[in-house]
C-alpha cells in the first residue's frame, strides 16, 4: 500500500522527464512540419520576403504539369526499384546461406561485418569515389581496356544516361545489401526449427522449404525492410547529386530525383520555397500511401497464412 502511494506521488516526474523531448520536438520538428505544409500553399519566395500569399493548390497543380517534376518522380521510383530488387535477391540468397543449418558455413560473422561496411561510409564520398573510378582515365576503364582488353577503347560512362542510372543503382545496392541480409538472417534464425523438422519428415526439399516456410514466415521482416527502404529511397539525394556532378542529375536529367528537384526549386533562379515545400509534401504522401498499402497487403496475407497453417496442422 505504502509503495503504491509512493509510486503515484512520484508520477508527475514522468512529465518532467519527457518535457525536454516535448519542448524541443514542438519547436524543432512539429512546428517546421506544419510550416512546410503551410508554405506548400503559398507562393513564398526566398528573395522577395518569405511569407508570400496563399495560392491554394496552385503549387501542386503546376508541379504535376511540370515535365521536369514528372521526370524526377519517375526517376526516383526507377532508381529505387533498380536498387531494391537486386539488393533483396542478393540479401535473400546470403541470408539463406548464412542461416542454413544443413551446410554450416564458416566465417559468416566476418562476411557479415565486411558486407555491412559500405553502409557506414559517407555517401558523399562514395559517390565522388565512383565518379572518379568511372572517368576516361579511371581504374575501371584501364582495367577493361588495358588489363583485360574486354573493351577496345575507353568509355566515358557518366556521359551516358543508362550508365549513370545503372551506377546509382549499383552504389545503392552496394551500400545496402549487407544491412538487409543481416536483418533477414535475424528474422530467419527466429523461425522455430520445428517447422523445418516436420517438413523434412514429409520429405520436402531445401528449395521447397525456403519458398513454403521461410518466405511466408519472414513476412513481417520483409515488410520492415521494404517500408524503411521505400521511405529512404524516395528521399535519395547525396549519391545521384554527387555522382552526376550537377544539380539536375545530368546527363539528360537521368538521375534527377525528387529531393534534387526540390533543392533546384528552392535555389536560384526559381527561389520558390513554396513550390519546394509542395514537393516534400507530395513526397511524404506518396511514401505514406505506398507504405500503408504495403502494411495492408502484408498483414492480410500473413493472417491468411497463419489460418492456412493452423488448418494444415490440425488436419495433418
Amino acid at each position, binding site marked *: 500500500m505504502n509503495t503504491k502511494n509512493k509510486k503515484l506521488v512520484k508520477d508527475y516526474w514522468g512529465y518532467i522527464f519527457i518535457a525536454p523531448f516535448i519542448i524541443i520536438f514542438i519547436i524543432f520538428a512539429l512546428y*517546421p512540419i506544419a510550416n512546410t505544409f503551410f508554405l506548400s500553399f503559398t507562393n513564398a519566395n526566398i528573395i522577395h520576403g518569405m511569407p508570400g500569399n496563399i495560392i491554394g493548390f496552385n503549387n501542386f497543380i503546376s508541379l504535376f504539369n511540370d515535365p521536369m517534376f514528372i521526370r524526377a518522380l519517375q526517376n526516383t521510383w526507377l532508381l529505387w526499384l533498380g536498387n531494391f530488387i537486386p539488393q533483396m535477391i542478393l540479401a535473400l540468397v546470403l541470408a539463406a546461406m548464412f542461416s542454413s543449418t544443413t*551446410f554450416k558455413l564458416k566465417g559468416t560473422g566476418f562476411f557479415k561485418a565486411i558486407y555491412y561496411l559500405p553502409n557506414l*561510409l559517407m555517401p*558523399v564520398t562514395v559517390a565522388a569515389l565512383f565518379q*572518379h573510378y568511372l572517368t576516361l582515365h579511371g581504374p575501371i576503364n584501364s582495367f577493361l581496356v588495358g*588489363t583485360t582488353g574486354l573493351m577496345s577503347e575507353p568509355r566515358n560512362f557518366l556521359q551516358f544516361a543508362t550508365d549513370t542510372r545503372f551506377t546509382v543503382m549499383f552504389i545503392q545496392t552496394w551500400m545496402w545489401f549487407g544491412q538487409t541480409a543481416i536483418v533477414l538472417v535475424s528474422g530467419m534464425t527466429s523461425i522455430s526449427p520445428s517447422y523445418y523438422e516436420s517438413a523434412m519428415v514429409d520429405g520436402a526439399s531445401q528449395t521447397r522449404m525456403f519458398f513454403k516456410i521461410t518466405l511466408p514466415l519472414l513476412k513481417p521482416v520483409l515488410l520492415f525492410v521494404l517500408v524503411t527502404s521505400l521511405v529512404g529511397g524516395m528521399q535519395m539525394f547525396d549519391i545521384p547529386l554527387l555522382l552526376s556532378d550537377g544539380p539536375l542529375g545530368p546527363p539528360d536529367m537521368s538521375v534527377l530525383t525528387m*529531393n534534387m528537384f526540390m533543392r533546384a526549386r528552392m535555389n536560384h533562379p526559381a527561389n520558390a520555397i513554396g513550390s519546394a515545400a509542395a514537393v516534400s509534401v507530395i513526397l511524404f504522401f506518396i511514401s505514406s500511401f505506398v507504405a500503408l498499402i504495403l502494411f495492408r497487403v502484408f498483414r492480410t496475407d500473413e493472417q491468411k497464412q497463419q489460418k492456412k497453417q493452423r488448418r494444415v496442422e490440425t488436419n495433418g
Partner: protein
Amino acid sequence: MDSYRIKQFSYKFICYTFLIILFLICVLPIYMLLINATRTTEAINAGFSLIPGTNIINNWNIIQGFGINIPLGLRNSLIIAISTTFLSVYFSLLTAYAINIYDFKFKKAFYGFILAMTLVPMNLYLIGFFQYMHHLGMLNSLTPMILPSIAAPGTVFFFKQYLDSALVPELIQAARIDGATEFEIFNKIVLPISKPGAFTMAIFAFVGSWNAFMGPLFIIGGNINLHTLPLIMQRLQGDAFRTDFGAIYLGMAISLIPIIIVYSIFSKYIVSGITLGSVKE
C-alpha cells in the same frame, strides 16, 4: 553417401566463391581509394595499383593549397557529431525511462505518437525548418544543427524496448526507499544499467551525424567556416578543373578513415545492433 559428400562439397565451394567475390566487391573500391591517396597523380592516371605509393605527404600539401580547410571540417564534424550523439542518447533514454517507469495521463498516446514519427521522412520538415531558421536569423549557426537532436523518436523507440527487458522496477523502488531523488536514480542507476544499449545507439547516432549531407547543406551550407566534412567533400568534388587526383583521393580517404577505424574496433557491437531497432517478433 559418396555422392552426398560430393554434392555437399560442391555446394560449399559455390557458396564460398560467391562470398569471396562479394567480399572483393565490397573491399576493393575502398582499398583502392586508400592506395590512391598515397600515389602521385601521374601514377594514378597511368593505371590502377594495389601497392601503396610514397606521395602521401606531397598530396597533403597539395590539399592545403586548394584553399579547402580539412582540419577545420574535421573539427566541425566532430563538434556536431559528439554533441548530437550525447544529446540524443541522454534525452532519448530519459524520455524512454519516463514512459517505462511512471504512470501519467496520455502516456500511451504519447508513445504511439513517437512510433508514428519514426516513419516520417526528415525531408518533410527540412523546408519548414529552413524557412523558420531563416526567419529567426539562426541559419548558418551551430544551434539548429545540434539542439533538435534532443528529440529523436527513433532512439526513444529503441530505448523503450531496451528498458522493457533491461530494467527491474524493484531496483528503482529500493533506491527510493534509500532516499535517492528521481533525478539521481536516473543518472546513477538507470544510465549505468543501460550502458550497452546506449553505446550501440551512440555509434549509430555518431555515424549518422558524421555522414549527414542534406540537412547540413540547407542549414549551414552558407557558412564555409562551419562546413562539415561531407560539405567539404562536395566542394572538393565540385571544382572540375582540379586534376590533382592524388590529393582528391587523399581528401576522400580522410573522410572515411575515422569511420573505418571505429568500425574495425566495434564491428561486433555494430552488427548486432543493426537488428535491435528493427523488428521484434
